[in-house]
């Protein structure tokens, strides 16, 4: 048992459930401390229990920090009445400490949500996630393998996208000046892409049926994804963090 492998080996479906529960819980809190403490905790857990590329992690956080900043100032400027003492005023705008705390809370919430989302994204293999959803949450095999087929087509779709764009360039279309022209131009790109997708989907479905894939629910799997004791330990760890950040956040305000 290696400590920094734990998050990578955690059952994906359970990890998904943990992320969802954390988000839905954090959404009830409007104090700045709860999401801030939660964020710090998540980063600490990730530092100890995973081996990820932190440079990439920082890079991925940038857009969220920008979004969080957007939340901060909109929520200050267009705040709902919340009471409290006025700490800052300019012309008609008055900001109370209560409003500022809420704005800060919402932007920390963006950061906290992103940290747990990145934790999931950095430590989960996509195929395992779908397999685990099928085996632990009884996702229909028809749907699960359908998703897998779609996922396998991703590189093909990308290739086709480039091809169609080249074809358009050759004929001199697709270099519109205005954004709304480009928006309408999207249809020209989408339709050949979707038409090809329809044909590929049909071929793939025939091939699956020809190999006796019925999509019936099953109990035995080629690659079993199991739930181990460590999954429950990690779940308990996340829940402890969630509960303690909720309680601490309320106590500190």
């Amino acid at each position, binding site marked *: 048992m290696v400590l920094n492998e734990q998050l990578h080996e955690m059952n994906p479906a359970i990890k998904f459930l943990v992320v969802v529960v954390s988000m839905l819980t954090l959404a009830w809190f409007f104090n700045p401390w709860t999401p801030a403490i939660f964020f710090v905790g998540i980063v600490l857990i990730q530092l100890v229990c995973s081996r990820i590329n932190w440079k990439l992690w920082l890079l991925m956080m940038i857009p969220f920090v920008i*979004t969080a900043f957007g939340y901060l100032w909109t929520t200050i400027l267009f705040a*709902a009445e919340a009471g409290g003492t006025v700490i800052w005023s300019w012309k008609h705008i008055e900001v109370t400490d209560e409003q500022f705390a809420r704005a800060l809370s919402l932007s920390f919430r963006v950061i906290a949500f*992103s940290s747990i989302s990145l934790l999931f994204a950095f430590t989960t293999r996509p195929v395992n996630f779908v397999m685990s959803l099928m085996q632990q949450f009884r996702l229909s095999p028809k749907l699960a393998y359908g998703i897998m087929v779609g996922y396998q087509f991703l590189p093909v779709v990308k290739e086709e996208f480039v091809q169609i764009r080249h074809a358009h360039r050759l004929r001199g279309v697709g270099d519109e000046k205005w954004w709304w022209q480009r928006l309408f131009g999207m249809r020209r790109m989408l*339709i050949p892409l979707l038409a090809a997708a329809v*044909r590929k989907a049909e071929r793939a479905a025939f091939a699956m049926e020809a190999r006796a894939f019925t999509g019936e629910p099953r109990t035995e799997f080629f690659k079993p994804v199991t739930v181990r004791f460590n999954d429950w330990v990690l779940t308990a760890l996340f829940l402890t963090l969630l509960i303690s950040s909720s309680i601490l956040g309320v106590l500190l305000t």
Partner: protein
Amino acid sequence: MLRSWKLKEVVLMSVFSVVFAVVYLLFVHVGNIWSGFIGPIAYEWIFGIWFIVSIICMYIIRKPGAAVYSETITAAIEVMIGNAVGPRLILSGLIQGLGAEAAFAATGYKRFNWWVLVLSGVGAAVFSFAYGFFVSGYSALAPSYLALMFGLRVMSGAVIAGFGGKWVSDGLLATGALRGYAISLDKRKPSVD
């Protein structure tokens, strides 16, 4: 619900989901760039784009569940591609899909004309706004600002998802690629009314 589905319809839905997952992610970036400057309202006017797959899939496949499944799978594929918004997308996809599905369910999955599609876009907008109100804490915003956000989102849902979805699907139908799906079978049937 999935029992009445043919495998080729399931696969069609998921391949469409891949195409739109890429489109959706592109638009997340468009929204992100703006949101730093103008806040969460940056996403509102383009919000309809994120509902479009449910309307297209339902319009083509015409079976109960087409809107919910397609939107949820698209979200799942966005997560699989490894975008940073992560697993919470699946939840919002599910809720948007339910909103879109509601309009079709209310008309008994019998009508697929433009106003049902528009209504479905509006349904997705309303559901997703209610969810956003909770998860993103919109209650901290002033009611007038909220009303502006809501209005923009509903408009966007109606125009981009409703009319846009029909526009794209009709274009696709004209290529002849959709032979063998409910959309072209219904076109061939002599109209009753």
